[in-house]
């Protein structure tokens, strides 16, 4: 109850400041639309169905990109954490790939992967990958050596040690990576759409901004992305709380 109250107050203050700035500055709508203008535009976008049409595509990209990216990242992170050899061989490529701006690579990836949903999922997964893989590696490495020795004394196989000790004890750190990763998935989806797509919230931003000079619609798209990001982040937190309730 208190948390919800705080969230409402914080939103109200944000809207009030926004309104104040737009009134004092006297900006034209195409520079900074006031909040009520954006709300009205949002109502029309919902009514005409374009908001849902674009959101549905972006949501699908986020869900698939995050699922693929997080799964491969956790598996890679486990291998990196368990084997110094794997880390030595793979980590230069992983770090180098992370240092290259994905924005520059995205058009190329779009061509390589056929320009469809697959290409966008791959781009989104790549952006999601790094923080989750690194978090998993660090988490696996931080396994209590005393517990590891205890399991070894019971004759646990390598797979049993991973399943029963290393992964569970890495979970809090892995979830730290998942929280970062899920917000990056939203950015990944938009970047992927900019590289080549005909629908999606990223596309809607471009249409509104460059095609129509419809700044309120651009704000609607941005706000929708923010809400999606918050919702997925919240979902990860809820799963984390349920899994780590001890």
């Amino acid at each position, binding site marked *: 109850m208190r948390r919800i109250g705080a969230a409402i107050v914080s939103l109200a203050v944000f809207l009030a400041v926004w309104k104040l700035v737009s009134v004092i500055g006297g900006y034209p709508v195409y520079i900074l639309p006031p909040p009520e203008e954006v709300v009205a535009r949002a109502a029309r976008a919902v009514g005409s169905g374009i908001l849902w049409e674009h959101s549905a595509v972006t949501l699908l990209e986020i869900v698939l990109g995050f699922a693929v990216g997080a799964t491969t990242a956790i598996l890679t992170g486990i291998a990196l954490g368990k084997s110094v050899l794997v880390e030595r061989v793979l980590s230069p490529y992983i770090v180098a790939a992370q240092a290259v701006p994905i924005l520059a690579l995205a058009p190329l990836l779009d061509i390589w992967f056929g320009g469809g949903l697959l290409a966008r999922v791959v781009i989104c997964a790549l952006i999601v990958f790094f923080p989750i893989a690194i978090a998993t590696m660090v988490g696996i490495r931080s396994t209590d050596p*005393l517990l590891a020795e205890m399991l070894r004394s*019971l*004759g646990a196989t390598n797979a049993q040690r991973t399943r*029963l000790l290393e992964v569970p004890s890495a979970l809090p750190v892995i979830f730290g990576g998942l929280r970062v990763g899920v917000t990056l998935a939203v950015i990944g989806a938009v970047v992927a759409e900019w590289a080549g797509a005909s629908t999606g919230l990223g596309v809607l931003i471009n249409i509104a901004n460059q095609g129509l000079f419809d700044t309120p619609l651009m704000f609607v798209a941005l706000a929708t992305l923010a809400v999606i990001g918050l919702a997925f982040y919240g979902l990860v937190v809820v799963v984390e709380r349920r899994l780590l309730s*001890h």
Partner: protein
Amino acid sequence: MSSQPNPRTGLDVTIRDVGVRFAASGGDVQALADCSLDIGAGSFTVIIGPNGCGKSTLLRLVAGLLSPASGSVMVDGRVPQPGDGRTGLCFQQPRLVPWRSTVDNVALPLELTGVPVGERIERAARALDRVGLASAARIRPSGLSGGMAQRAALARALIGDPPVLLLDEPFSALDALTRETFNDELQRLWLERRRTVILVTHSVSEAIALADRVVVMTPRPGHVARTVEVDLSRPRPAELLGDPRAAELAVEVRAALGEGHALELQPWAEQDGAA
């Protein structure tokens, strides 16, 4: 993967001319050198010695967690392997898995060997009952006192019914009173079922209270300085330590510990503990 031998008594343990080295920052450390010890099936042996004399290393060798660089370690004539079901190891710290309930912690060894969930929980519950922890089955380790946690660890070491029980200072972190009850219970468990028990400790009185034979080790590189047979009747209550014979034995063990320190300067000095 693990055979489950279940003889009426324990198994004998033979340690022959064992040497162990560890790589350390300042060069290799010789933890054990020419260490020999014969432990009879079903006997209660207490190993005592100063810090760093390789007592824990010796237990790890018997548990199969380490292989000796030279010499041999045998349990019933075979090289021990972790998970071979012949040894149960209880560490200085309880080492319970924090996200598992007490009963799930105790059932862990059975889970590793593929015992079905119903059976392993039932057996774990019985093992907990034996160490007086039945009411704590559903509690996570963070809710257990130090003594309770160590009891759970003992139950875990015992659940596979290993013929050889290895105890690495399991009571050292407990207060004196808890420790005494613990010793009583350990003795009772051993009298019920004569496993081979090897207990490592720092405490002379604990050694006298529990052992058939006290093995005194020298400082690094560790080997057996002397063994002292404890010819006191069982069960031995706590008051027994006031007994004159017990006092005599304690003096003998302390003297051997003192010699051990002297031996540090004269590594060639006579030693023949492995009766």
